[in-house]
């Protein structure tokens, strides 16, 4: 089988029924763009979740009468715990300085006269799942010299749970979009194949194998997918750029702060993924549609 001929045939189909090709390309890029958008959102949400998790730290308030050697023993004990990354000691004075940065609170402290703030330990945990945090806190509470333990409490807990939910929702959204994109693309390719039914019929009568008939359609599908993917990536970039520009200059909101900008590698991987997805959809769509025409 002459590969050159199959490629020529595929390119011929690209420039033949121009309107159908444009519709197919449009649907392909739109589906892939939606997919890309979900991908961007997904990365943003993942990073946001990591950011929130990083911010969660456990604060252990020491009793007023805790002595220096008792505190250092406590720190050693906590540091030895396998889940602990770091422990920072915040003295009463340091806590006051931190507190005093807020002007309103400064006045409050002046009224009180003395420093009411306890010294504390701030602890960074390795795995911040709600269960893990709870287990660790109950362990801490039984240690000597501990007055109270907090970790952002229910708020952090709720935020973590919400993020888990959002992640799941985005995942479902992505899966449905992939499915929808595949169905749309397969149907458009069916139209293309249907438009060339007569040609397929002639080829079969002359003795073309199914592989020979299928070849150009598969190549065509992959090319359409790749071009659709590139278009979708460019469009996505342009839209994001315009959105950022508009919100910065008209609304004064920096979108980069809201959704951390992707690194060069991340952006390239994302674009590559969209283009690859396009090629895959084009290939599978053609395979299914031509197969149906060939009664396979």
């Amino acid at each position: 089988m002459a590969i050159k001929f199959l490629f020529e045939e595929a390119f011929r189909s690209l420039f033949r029924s121009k309107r159908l090709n444009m519709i197919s390309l449009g649907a392909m890029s739109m589906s892939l763009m939606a997919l890309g958008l979900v991908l961007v959102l997904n990365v943003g949400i993942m990073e946001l979740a990591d950011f929130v998790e990083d911010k969660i730290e456990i604060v252990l308030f020491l009793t007023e009468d805790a002595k220096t050697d008792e505190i250092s023993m406590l720190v050693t004990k906590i540091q030895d715990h396998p889940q602990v990354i770091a422990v920072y000691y915040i003295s009463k004075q340091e806590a006051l300085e931190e507190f005093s940065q807020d002007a309103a609170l400064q006045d409050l402290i002046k009224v009180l006269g003395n420093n009411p703030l306890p010294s504390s330990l701030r602890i960074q945990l390795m795995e911040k799942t709600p269960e893990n945090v709870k287990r660790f806190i109950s362990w801490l509470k039984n240690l000597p010299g501990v007055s109270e333990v907090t970790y952002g409490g229910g708020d952090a807990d709720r935020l973590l749970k919400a993020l888990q939910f959002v992640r799941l929702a985005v995942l479902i959204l992505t899966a449905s979009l992939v499915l929808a994109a595949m169905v749309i693309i397969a149907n458009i390719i069916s139209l293309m194949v249907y438009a060339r039914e007569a040609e397929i019929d002639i080829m079969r009568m002359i003795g073309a194998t199914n592989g020979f008939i299928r070849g150009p359609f598969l190549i065509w599908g992959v090319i359409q997918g790749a071009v659709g993917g590139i278009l979708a990536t460019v469009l996505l970039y342009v839209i994001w750029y315009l959105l950022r520009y508009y919100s910065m200059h008209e609304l004064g909101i920096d979108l980069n702060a809201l959704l951390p900008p992707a690194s060069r590698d991340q952006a390239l991987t994302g674009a590559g993924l969209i283009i690859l997805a396009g090629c895959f959809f084009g290939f599978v769509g053609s395979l299914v549609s031509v197969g149906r025409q060939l009664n396979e």
Partner: protein
Amino acid sequence: MIQFHHVFMTYQNEYKALRDVSLEIDRGEFIMVTGPSGAGKSTLIRLVTREILPTKGQVIVFDQNVAKLKAVQLPYFRRKMGVVFQNFRLLYDRTVAENVALTLHILGTTGRTITREVNQALDRVGLTRKKNVKPWHLSGGEMQRVVLARAIVHDPPLLLADEPTGNLDFATGWEMMQLLKQVTETGTTVFCATHNLNFIQKMKKRTLFLDKGVIHGDRNKLHGN
């Protein structure tokens, strides 16, 4: 080359296209089949190309029972025949030469061999000058000659023609018949269906008379060639 043994063909709408047809066509023969519309001429040809399978009986082509051909064997089976259709079935977005070359591409021929063989085939049907023209710009007779060139470019042992003159005027149709006759001279078996009795009379070839799916006469056997 072709044998029909007690072949019955009933279509899905209960239409009985062929009833107990038996016939034998030898290698290198020129055989014509005639009869009114709906007599079963096209059905005979479609059975040979294995577009359809007989309801009953056996169709043997190239010593193979067509009913036993597997799907993967079918393309290779069809490469041994050329088919000329009444409605041409050309690819209108390609030039004359590209239409003819399609057969060779399917056969896996490459490079200059294609150009050479396409030129030879177009020369045989007298269309060399129009090889770079798209079929839209051709007359009916010329289109049918392109179809013939496409069917014989690979020198198949069997040529099937289903009403090749159906869309042509008498003079052009007669030219087509002459071309078909020339094809037999190279050893190709030609099986041609036509309802035009003028051609039957003038060609003086073996002819099957078909009516309502039954063979009523075989002129070869009655009068000889």
